[in-house]
């Protein structure tokens, strides 16, 4: 049954809004703008949609968000879901929407997510909203910021494996190098390892430049069956594998700080796809903080445990490296509007697999692994995408 989804569903439309600082649009407007762009990219009209998935925004929340967006856009889907599992939401809902298409529940689904953390909220409100990820009784009273919650992971990981601050910094530098090739990225100024280490300490051992951005923006993707995709405007990008892993919700309940449920989600995705880490031409890995990329590289099978720091430092994540990673600049340099952040990894992977990524194109990219996680290394989803249905 694992193979039942392989190659059955394709991404046929993508749309990124303006990202970074976008004061002229609110979170709801961005969400709908992303849908409009994705429909346009797919060559579809809103009446072609019969499924809608969104995630709520922090800046402009609605009790029933997907229903609100359907109303706003005046579409009347048969499959309508507002989801929330943090930064991994976009991939887990893609997994679910693909299942809905494969089982005939609906035909064509748009997934759209946006938020306005920079312009739609005060800095204090944005920080408080994001740190509400802490347990309300047993974590939040101690005042953790999101960087601090990840700082606990960073310290444990670095002490377990002797990972250096320079190796963490190399992740941020790699993303910035790629962002320089992406005209849409929020942060494009070159940085060095020294710049990262000299940046302000936020939650020791995480410096400012080990932390992802705070942004406005949104993105959408349109999914439909592989059969329908064959006649559509764009080169289809097929879903070959999908897997989830859910380890905990609150970091104080984590069974391990150094190995995550990415090890489970990755194994499930790889099994479905019948492909392994070595078959991947590039990867887009959730990079809310630099050490997260190292843990993911290991848990997803690209490196042995404890070896990711050296792997990154040796340049393997560069466009000409063995595993080009976060080719758009990632959450560290492209943009990070909160829960929608991983949507951009998805639209980037589609651009790469369409061979339409311009200056940052990974040569002959056929297959990619994209991974997102939400909460504090809590909920993981791995997707394997390819140009061929399998």
């Amino acid at each position: 049954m694992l193979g039942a989804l392989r190659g059955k569903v394709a991404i046929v439309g993508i749309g990124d809004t303006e990202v970074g600082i976008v004061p002229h649009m609110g979170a709801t407007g961005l969400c709908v703008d992303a849908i409009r762009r994705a429909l346009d990219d797919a060559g579809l009209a809103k009446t072609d949609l019969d499924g809608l998935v969104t995630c709520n925004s922090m800046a402009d929340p609605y009790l029933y968000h997907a229903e609100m967006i359907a109303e706003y856009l005046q579409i009347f889907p048969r499959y309508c879901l507002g989801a929330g599992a943090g930064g991994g939401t976009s991939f887990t809902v893609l997994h679910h929407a693909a299942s809905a298409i494969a089982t005939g529940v609906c035909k064509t689904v748009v997934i759209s997510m946006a938020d306005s953390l920079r312009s739609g909220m005060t800095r204090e409100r944005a920080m408080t909203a994001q740190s509400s990820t802490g347990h309300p009784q047993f974590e939040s009273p101690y005042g953790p910021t999101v960087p601090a919650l990840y700082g606990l992971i960073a310290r444990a990981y670095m002490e377990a494996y002797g990972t250096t601050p320079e190796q963490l910094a190399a992740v941020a530098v790699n993303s910035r190098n790629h962002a320089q090739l992406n005209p849409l990225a929020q942060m494009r100024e070159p940085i060095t390892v020294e710049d990262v280490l000299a940046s302000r300490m936020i939650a020791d051992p995480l410096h400012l430049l080990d932390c992802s951005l705070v942004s406005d923006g949104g993105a959408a993707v349109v999914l439909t069956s592989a059969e329908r995709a064959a006649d559509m405007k764009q080169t289809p990008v097929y879903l070959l594998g999908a897997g989830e892993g859910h380890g905990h919700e609150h970091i104080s309940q984590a069974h391990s700080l150094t190995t995550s449920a990415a090890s489970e989600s990755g194994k499930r995705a790889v099994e479905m796809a019948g492909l392994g880490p070595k078959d991947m031409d590039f990867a887009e890995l959730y990079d809310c903080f630099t050490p997260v990329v190292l843990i993911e590289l290991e848990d997803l099978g690209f490196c042995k445990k404890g070896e990711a720091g050296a792997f990154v430092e040796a340049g393997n994540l560069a466009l000409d490296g063995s595993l080009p990673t976060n080719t758009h600049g990632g959450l560290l340099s492209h943009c990070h509007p909160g829960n929608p952040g991983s949507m951009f990894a998805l639209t980037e992977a589609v651009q790469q697999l369409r061979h339409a990524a311009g200056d940052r194109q990974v040569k002959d990219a056929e297959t990619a692994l994209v991974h997102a996680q939400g909460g504090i290394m809590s909920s993981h989803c791995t997707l394997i995408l390819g140009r061929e249905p399998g």
Partner: protein
Amino acid sequence: MSKQPAKHFPVPTPETAPYWEACHNHQLLIQKCADCGKHQFYPRTVCSHCTGGTLEWAEASGRGEIVSYTIMHRAVSKAYAGGGVTVLALIRLEEDVQMMSNIIGCDPEQVCTGMSVEIIFEDWSDEISMPMFRPADQQ
């Protein structure tokens, strides 16, 4: 405009009220399963090990060690920005349960993983006292 920023006060629920009542009396109570004998934290209506439904409250030693920590140079809100940097830590208690807390009563630079710590309560209001930790044997 005159609204004072407040700390995030815990709001007890039926399953956690005995924990917070004990904290108010400067006592650390955690749950122990009558069926499998294991402890758990945070309080639940079922045992997270064996799904048993008979949970007893047991006084914990209040001693444990630091599993990981971070020194927060930026506070989450003004209410937390008062006392310089904050040390956020995960602590494994002698009863083999893990909890989050702050390490207080020492120079943040002294904190290290594996450090032995002991509980100390901070009175936040007439109802709420927060369990904090400090280096052990520091009378």
